């Protein structure tokens, strides 16, 4: 599993270089709660294995705590819980993806690849299982539509910092 993640790390670097030449945008595909979602690679700074975290009391349930990433204290958020789709079960492949200096818990990293512009569509106003404001666009990936996530909305400080019971 270690090698798994390391491979992807290298992939991103390579593909980023390619991206400069091509005209298709690069995306990081990953699984959360069995579904595939994507982030624009530009939003993601790093991926690491899931690691122990320190619970911080009084926070909303989806704020799991903090973890130490190379000497920095980084908040950890359960993406699935943020979508109100239950809690991520921690397993062998559970990973943290670092977006905007925050760590998101996801089931597993799937792929990094590009999507051509024609395959990117406006998100539906309703009908998708996660709230519309979390979705930037929908995209065709392996013949099915998946959500490209809106990092700013998911990591909205005002919502993340709400205390439990408030």
């Amino acid at each position, binding site marked *: 599993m270690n090698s798994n993640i390391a491979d992807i790390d290298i992939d991103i670097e390579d593909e980023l270089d390619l991206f400069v030449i091509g005209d298709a945008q690069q995306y990081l595909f990953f699984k959360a709660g069995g579904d595939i979602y994507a982030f624009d690679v530009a939003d993601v700074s790093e991926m690491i294995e899931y690691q122990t975290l320190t619970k911080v009391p009084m926070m909303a349930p989806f704020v799991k705590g903090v973890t130490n990433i190379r000497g920095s*204290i980084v908040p950890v958020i359960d993406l699935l819980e943020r979508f109100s789709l239950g809690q991520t079960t921690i397993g062998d492949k559970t990973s943290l993806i670092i977006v905007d200096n925050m760590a998101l818990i996801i089931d597993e990293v799937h792929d990094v690849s590009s999507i051509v512009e024609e395959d990117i569509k406006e998100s539906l106003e309703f009908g998708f299982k996660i709230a519309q404001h979390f979705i930037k666009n929908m995209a065709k990936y392996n013949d099915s539509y998946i959500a490209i996530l809106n990092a700013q909305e998911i990591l909205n400080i005002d919502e993340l910092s709400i205390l439990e019971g408030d």
Partner: protein
Amino acid sequence: MNEELEIFLEDCEDQLQSMENALLQMQSGVIDEDAIGSIFRAVHTIKGSAGMFGFDDIVSFAHTGENLFDLIRQGSVKISPDMLTHFLLCKDHMEKLIDAVVNEEDISPQLEAIGEKLVEKLVTYMTPIEEVKEVVLNLNEIDDTSNKVTSLWHISIRFSKDFFTTGMSINATFNFLNKIGTIHINHALTYAIPLLEELLPTQAYIGFELVFETSSSKKEIEEVFEFIEDDVDLVLFQTEDIEAYDMLLQKRKESQLKDTLISAKLALAENFTLELQEDESSVSSEAIVEKEIKKKEKKVSTTLRVDSTKIDVLINYMSEIVIANSKILSLVASEDDKEENSELQEAANNMKELLEYVRDGIMDIRMIQVGDSFNKFKRIVNDTSQKIGKDVEFVISGEDTELDKTVVERISDPLVHMLRNSIDHGIELPAERLANGKSAKGRVDLRAFADSGSIVIEIEDDGKGLDKTKILAKAIENGQVHPNANLSDEEIFKLIFEAGLSTAEKVSDISGRGVGMDVVRRNIEDLRGTIDIESTLGKGSKIIIRLPLTLAIIDGFLVQVGNTKYIIPLENIKECIELSKTQETEMGSNEFINLRGEMLPLIDVRKILHEDKSIYKRTNIVIVYFGNKTVGLIVDELLGEYQTVIKSLGEVFHKISGISGGSILGSGEIALIFDIPRLIELKSRLGSDNEL
């Protein structure tokens, strides 16, 4: 901004501050020579430094002020209250000019117009008027305000080899000399310049011998060189002092100097009686040398200006070292074979001790006295009270209390706001005070002192105090307090720090602008401080601010609660005890124990932080205190003392109270740091709402 300009700015700020202090002192009625002298010196120094940089606007403005103060110093002009107010305006103007030139902005026409008006008025203070006008016009000529007889001076200048690297220009020096007098002969000495192939273009080889006519004193001429004194070797004497020429030769030890001086008509051949001899040391030349040494000694300052970011970098590294060393210590302690490792252990402990010294030393660099910052408030208090017709005596104490520089800087705005509030809302108008049997003059105290590991700043006024019923009514009206709530006085007073709670009937432009009291509280809490308020209706109010000594590193005590490790700042800890079975039974469902006859309220950390039930057999209590409150924290395990670096948990967690940050332990684990004052507050709030 380059380094020289920065020094200039800092210098000017210091001078302006001492000028303001002296003016305010005079305004309060104490007009003495010291105060006048210090203003004169301040103006003079600013003029001098500005001259070195060629900031002519500042020079000419300061010049008028300097002349006036010179007259005041001599007793030919008397100071009136009206003048003092005007001087304060002039000081402000000077500040603006300095700001503008330092930021490389042009002096705006408005600023120029203000300057002209100020100068006009300054000039009217000087008598006789004609003479003064002449001074203003003939800025570049001989200064004759004091009608001193001019005299001729010989000035001999040698620049240090790396003079050009100081960023100063030789020209500026001459320009400045021209402002206080006239250079009659200026002879450049070129004989020290090497042949072209040996010449380093970045070095200064040139020297100057001048004859200079001025009414200024020797000291004033020397002050021209004040800014570059370390890089200039100066010999200065009156041309009538014939013996001095010999001494000059003695000092310079330059074989061609004598002939050059004579041929440039800088000296007469008969001025020289001695032949230059390498090892000759007459009594008089020794005297010069001695004098020079003395001058040097006096000028050597024991302070060092350092860019504070350099210290911050050092503190960051220090923090990392502290963490790394904790790891070494825990590794050493966990070694099984204690016998064999005793030397290693000793070395590690020794290291720890030394690191503590280094850390304390670094932190100490950041500590500054609050006095300078406090003195700036005098002016604000003065202006505010005058503006609204109140008579206020402002008393500062504890100026030498030391506090972290960042804290001092960040506490300044909140303090200004609270002082304005005290004057605007607290202190009554003189008539009202008299009617209430108080003295017409109100009093505002600003105090700073150290108290059990924290710094306390108090603002106390003898004004009308806070009206409990009014505050409460307003809070209920705003829906911030339930109508049936039973609040203590303290809790009611604290409501003034809530947003949107202003009980002032009319918003004045004094306390109405800028930050509100809620922002004040926020600022202080950001510094891990607390704010409390005491007040008696009709007698006055007291705001008490408690601040931590430093922001970056704390000595803490590591405890385990559930699965999480917490650090309690050592400065808050009184003692640790074990909760005995008898105490536990005695306690029942209450949340306090009887500790040596005193009731000790308890906070069950596990409960308040929603941790799972304890798996530990023993229950420990850490007794913490803050101010006058003491409580016991029930924790699972005591893990011992721990030196730690506070790291922010980030914006996501900014609403949590009771936790001030996190710290990365030697093992890489993160421990949360308790904010004891806030935790106690949180508990009493939750307690009164019966949520727990």
